[in-house]
C-alpha cells in the first residue's frame, strides 16, 4: 500500500501543469497540442494511477482536445500496440507518440449499445481483400483522423477493421453539434464497400476497448471536477459581499467542502480502479464501472455547484465550470453508460441468479 506518487511522477505532473499553463489551450488545435505533449512522455504513459493523475491535469485545461488526444493515443494506440502486426506497429505507433498521426475509434452504431446488440457493420471476403459496409455513430476524431479503427463483424467474429483516411467508400458526416466537446471533431462515419487488406483486420476483445474508453472518460471527469472546483474556489475567495469573501458564508463554504470531498473521493476511486486494472485483478472491471458511475455523476454535480457559486460569471460561456458542466453528460453516456454499468455491477453482486 502506498498512497503517494513517487518523486519522478510528482515532478512530471508538476511540469505537465506548468507546460499547459503556458499554452492557451482554447486557441490551438489538436495537432499543435499533440506536438507540445510529444515533448514530454505524456503520450506514452501506461495504464496506472499515475496516468489518471496526468489525464486529470490535461483535461482540467481542455476537455475537447483531451478527448481527441486520448481517443487517438490511448484507445486507438492500444488497439494497434496490443492487436496490430509488426508492420502496423512500425508504421503507426511512432506517429502517434510523436503527435503526428491521429487515430479514430468507431464502436457505436445507431443502437449505441455494443453489449447487447450485435454490430451491423460487416466485412466479407472477396479475393484476397475484405469488403466492409456499415454506419458508425458519434465517432470522435472522425474529421481529422489518419486512421480509423472500425468495430464490426466478420466470419461471425468481432473484429476491428483498420482503415486509412482516403480509402474509397469511406465518408464522414458534417461535424455533429454536441452539448459539450465543441472543439472535438465528432461525426458519423459511413463505409460503403470499403476495400482493405486482410492484414488490416484485427481481432481484439471489444470489451477491452470499451474499458479503455471508460478509463479515459474517468480521467476526463477528474479534470472537469478539478477545473470546476478551482474556478469556484478562486471566485469565492475573491468575490466579496457584505464586506467579506463569499467563501466565509456557509452556503458557499460548505458547498465547496462537498465539492472537494467529491473530487478527492473520485480521484482515489479512479486511481484504485486503474491500479486494479494494471495488475489484472479480477475485480478490476467492476471497480472501473463503479468508478465511472461515481465520477460521471459527480462531475455533473460538482460542475453544477461551481456554476451556482460563480453565479453571474457562471452563466457566461467560456469558463471552465460551464465547459465541464456541458461535457459531464458525455461521461455518463459514452463508454459504458451509467445504466449499463449499474446493471453490470448489480449482476456481479448477485452472481448466478
Amino acid at each position, binding site marked *: 500500500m502506498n498512497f503517494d506518487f513517487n518523486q519522478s511522477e510528482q515532478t512530471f505532473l508538476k511540469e505537465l501543469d506548468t507546460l499547459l499553463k503556458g499554452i492557451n489551450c482554447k486557441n490551438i488545435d489538436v495537432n499543435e497540442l499533440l506536438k507540445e505533449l510529444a515533448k514530454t512522455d505524456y503520450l506514452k504513459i501506461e495504464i496506472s494511477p499515475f496516468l489518471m493523475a496526468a489525464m486529470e491535469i490535461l483535461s482540467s485545461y481542455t476537455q475537447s482536445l483531451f478527448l481527441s488526444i486520448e481517443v487517438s493515443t490511448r484507445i486507438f494506440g492500444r488497439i494497434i500496440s496490443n492487436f496490430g502486426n509488426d508492420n502496423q506497429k512500425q508504421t503507426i505507433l511512432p506517429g502517434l507518440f510523436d503527435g503526428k498521426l491521429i487515430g479514430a475509434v468507431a464502436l457505436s452504431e445507431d443502437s449505441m449499445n455494443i453489449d447487447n446488440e450485435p454490430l451491423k457493420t460487416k466485412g466479407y471476403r472477396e479475393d484476397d481483400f475484405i469488403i466492409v459496409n456499415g454506419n458508425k455513430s458519434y465517432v470522435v476524431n472522425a474529421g481529422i483522423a489518419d486512421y480509423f479503427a472500425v468495430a464490426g463483424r466478420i466470419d461471425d467474429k468481432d473484429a476491428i477493421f483498420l482503415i486509412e483516411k482516403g480509402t474509397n467508400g469511406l465518408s464522414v458526416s458534417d461535424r455533429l453539434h454536441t452539448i459539450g466537446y465543441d472543439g472535438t471533431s465528432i461525426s458519423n462515419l459511413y463505409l460503403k464497400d470499403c476495400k482493405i487488406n486482410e492484414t488490416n483486420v484485427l481481432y481484439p476483445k471489444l470489451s477491452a476497448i470499451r474499458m479503455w474508453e471508460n478509463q479515459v472518460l474517468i480521467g476526463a471527469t477528474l479534470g472537469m471536477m478539478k477545473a470546476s472546483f478551482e474556478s469556484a474556489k478562486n471566485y469565492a475567495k475573491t468575490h466579496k459581499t457584505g464586506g467579506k469573501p463569499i467563501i466565509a458564508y456557509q452556503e458557499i463554504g460548505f458547498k465547496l467542502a462537498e465539492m472537494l470531498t467529491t473530487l478527492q473521493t473520485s480521484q482515489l476511486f479512479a486511481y484504485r480502479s486503474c491500479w486494479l486494472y494494471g495488475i489484472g485483478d479480477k475485480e478490476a472491471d467492476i471497480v472501473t464501472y463503479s468508478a465511472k458511475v461515481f465520477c460521471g455523476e459527480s462531475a455533473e454535480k460538482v460542475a453544477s455547484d461551481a456554476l451556482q457559486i460563480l453565479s453571474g460569471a457562471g452563466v457566461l460561456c467560456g469558463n471552465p465550470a460551464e465547459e465541464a458542466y456541458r461535457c459531464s453528460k458525455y461521461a455518463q453516456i459514452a463508454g459504458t453508460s451509467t445504466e449499463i*454499468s449499474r446493471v453490470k455491477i448489480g449482476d456481479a453482486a448477485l452472481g448466478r441468479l
Partner: protein
Amino acid sequence: MEFAFTKEQLMFKQEVIRFAKKEIVPRVQEFDLKEDFDVESFRKLGEFGILGLHFPEEYSGGGADVVTTVLAGEALGEAGVDGGLTLAYGAHSFLCADTIFRHGTEDQRRKYIPKLAKGEWIGCMGLTEPDAGSDVASMKTIAEKKGDKYILNGNKMFITNGPVADVAVVYAKTDPKVQHAGISAFIIEKGTKGFSAGKPLIKMGVRTSLTSELILQDCEIPKENILGKEGEGFLMAMQTVEWDRSALLAPFVGATRYLLKKCSDYSKKRIQFGKPIGSYQAIKHKLANMRIFVEAAHSLVYRIAWCKNQGRPLNHLEAAVAKLFVGDYSLLPSNDAVVLHGGYGYCHEYDVERIFRDGRLAPIGGGTSDIQKMIISRLI
C-alpha cells in the same frame, strides 16, 4: 501508488470474519433488542486480540500496524457485528486506551494497557458535555489542583461505555481562563468518590453500546492521574481523531459490505411476479449503489490509516473528507437495503433495520457532517 494489502493482512481479515461470525454475531440481535452491552462478546474481542491489536506485545497487545488494525474494524462490520459493539470497541481501544498509551507515564501504561488490551477492564473517554460538543473549548468541567490532588467538577455527555467503564479518560479545564490551552486530561477509575455514571440513554441505534452522562461531583483523584502535563489535553483529544477517521469509520464500510451480501442473497431468493427480484434492474441499481459506496469509501479510510502508519501528522482536510463522505453517503445504501427487503426489512430479524439505525450515527458522532464541512471550508 498502489493499494494492495499484504497476504498476512488479508489472511488476518478472514480470520477476524470467521471468529466474529462464530463467536459474536449469533448474539447481536438479542442484545440489540435488550439494549444491553454484551460483556461476553467484548471479552471475546479481548481474548482474540482485537482490543489491543495495535499495542506492543509487552503490553499484551498484538503489535499490529495501523492498516491491519483498521482492517480488523472493517472485518467486524463485514461479518455482521453490530455498530454498538464496534463503537464500544472503538471508544475503548482508541479513545481511551490509546490516549493512555500515547501520553501516559510508564507506570500508567503498565497499570492500564494490559488490562484494557485483554478486555479485563473496559475504558471510556469523556470529552463532550451537555453544552459543549464540537466547540470543545467551551467545556465547563473544572479540575482544580489542591495539594497533591485534583478536584473535578462537571458533567460529560454522550459517553460511550460510560455505564460499564472501569477506567475513563476525562478532559477538564485546569485553567478556565484560557480556551484550548486550558484543557487537561485525567485518568479516573470506577468507584472513585464523586465519580458516577448516569442512566444509559435510550438511543436510535448502536444500542448494544451503553451511553450515559458522567457526573463529577467533587471527584478527588491523586495528582499522578493527570495524563501528560496541564494544558496538553486538547492536543491529546485531537490525536484521537486519527483513529476516529480510520478505525472508527472502517466498521461502517464493512457493514455496507455485509448489507450488500445480505441484499444480494435476499434478492436471489425472493420471488415476485414469477422471478427473483434480483432480476429486476431497480434491485440491481440498489446493489450497485452499495458496491459503489464501499469502493469509494475504502480508499478514503485506508489513506488515513496508511498515512498514520507512515508516522505522518494527521492531514485534517483528508480526515474531514473521509468522515464527511462515509457519514453522509453511507445513509443511502442502508436506506436502500431496508426498502429492498420490503416488509421484512422493517423487521428486526433481517438485520437491515438495525444497520439502518446504527448507521445514522456516522454523520453525527465524532463531529457532525456540518462540522466536517466547516473544517474543510476553512482549510480550502
